[in-house]
């Protein structure tokens, strides 16, 4: 009786041992499969990023030397503004400060470099940030960047929905005085790669949000008064600064 019980117990122990061993093996294989899935997922992300990297681009006329923004004026102090045509704060900044900034450029005090970045593609259903920026490149090509920017901000769509289509952008271009060659440029998506370049360079420069304003490379608050003060300070500190 007792020896039979012992036999049963021994058999159970062996079975348990085998089951344990098999369980260990299975856990190992499941872990390996899970890690493999993670690695593959990571490689997909990397692949998409590498595939989207800009390699070739043509900057439109009126672009600065680095090809990452549109220059206005030729004053000694460089004011860089990074804006996304979809960003609400950029619109309020534009409404409040664009006239006085344009005046500073017209007076020969500053060189204004506008970087139309596409940071908010996630905030519209049809990549309005990218398309509006590329269209602004077309507007620059045909000499009406400032006018077109004004029209875009005046007709800024709300975030979250669909922004104006390419056809809508062409209509808006007409309001800014742009013609058929502009329309063709928008349809050809000629400056889409330039927009990627502008955004990439802005990111590299540490611009993480819009609007961002730099006066001679130093961050300034995005308001007319603050920019005027920073420009005056920069001009006073280095009156002989040359244009770039």
């Amino acid at each position, binding site marked *: 009786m007792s020896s039979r019980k012992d036999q049963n117990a021994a058999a159970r122990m062996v079975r348990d041992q085998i089951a344990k061993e*098999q369980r260990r093996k299975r856990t190992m294989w499941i872990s390996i499969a899970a890690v493999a899935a993670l690695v593959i997922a990571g490689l997909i992300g990397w692949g998409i990023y590498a595939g989207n990297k800009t390699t070739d681009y043509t900057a439109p006329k009126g672009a600065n030397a680095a090809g990452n923004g549109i220059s206005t004026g030729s004053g000694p102090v460089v004011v860089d503004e990074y804006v996304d045509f979809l960003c609400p704060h950029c619109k309020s900044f534009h409404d409040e400060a664009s006239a006085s900034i344009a005046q500073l450029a017209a007076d020969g005090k500053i060189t204004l470099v506008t970087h139309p970045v596409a940071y908010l593609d996630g905030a519209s259903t049809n990549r309005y940030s990218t398309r509006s920026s590329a269209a602004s490149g077309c507007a620059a090509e045909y000499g009406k960047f400032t006018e077109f920017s004004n029209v875009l901000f005046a007709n800024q769509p709300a975030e979250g929905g669909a922004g104006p289509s390419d056809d809508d952008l062409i209509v808006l271009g007409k309001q800014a005085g742009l013609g058929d060659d502009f329309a063709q440029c928008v349809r050809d998506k000629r400056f889409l790669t330039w927009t990627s370049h502008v955004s990439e360079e802005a990111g590299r420069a*540490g611009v993480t949000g819009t609007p961002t304003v730099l006066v001679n490379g130093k961050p300034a608050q995005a308001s007319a008064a603050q920019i005027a003060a920073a420009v005056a300070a920069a001009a006073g500190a280095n009156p002989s600064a040359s244009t770039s």
Partner: protein
Amino acid sequence: MDERTGWHRAQPWVSLLVRLGLAGIFLVAGGLKVTDLAANGRAVNAYQIMSYDAAMVVGAVQPFVEIVVGLLLLVGLATRLAAWLSAGMMVAFIAGISSAWARGLNIDCGCFSKGGQLPPGVTPNYLPEIFRDVAFLAMAIFLIIYPVSRFSLDARLDRPFSAGVPAEDDVLEEDSDESTDHTAPRRERA
């Protein structure tokens, strides 16, 4: 004694809730970011912890990893491993936010959003973000300690082997507590 067996019964259900909760967090966080990888890269770059290029790669890889970890937790596959990865990520996030706070950076953590610099006049609220991630970390640690949960693929895959041993619900448990139920008649195999 009663309490212990009560917990014994409840634990797989609690683990299920924690597992699904963490899965939802990762799927939502990853899903929100996967649609705009460049924006996520900039959000990582805003922490100013690594070079721009490294930040862009991390930003592109991270959402996919989050989604896979979320899926593993959702189906309950390699639960303990997924829980370890979750805990590791949470520690990294907490460290990142703390360091941004310590350096006085004015950024959106980008945890469930596009992240980046906050507009002027908006002050970052780092403390709730850290508390939230600590709570998520606690959930992950719970799962590391109690990975056995209801409706998990892990348990399903384990079942074939229960053919040889008395059928019990919690076959994944290392020690099914035979010592405690002296009263129950031992079921012998035929």
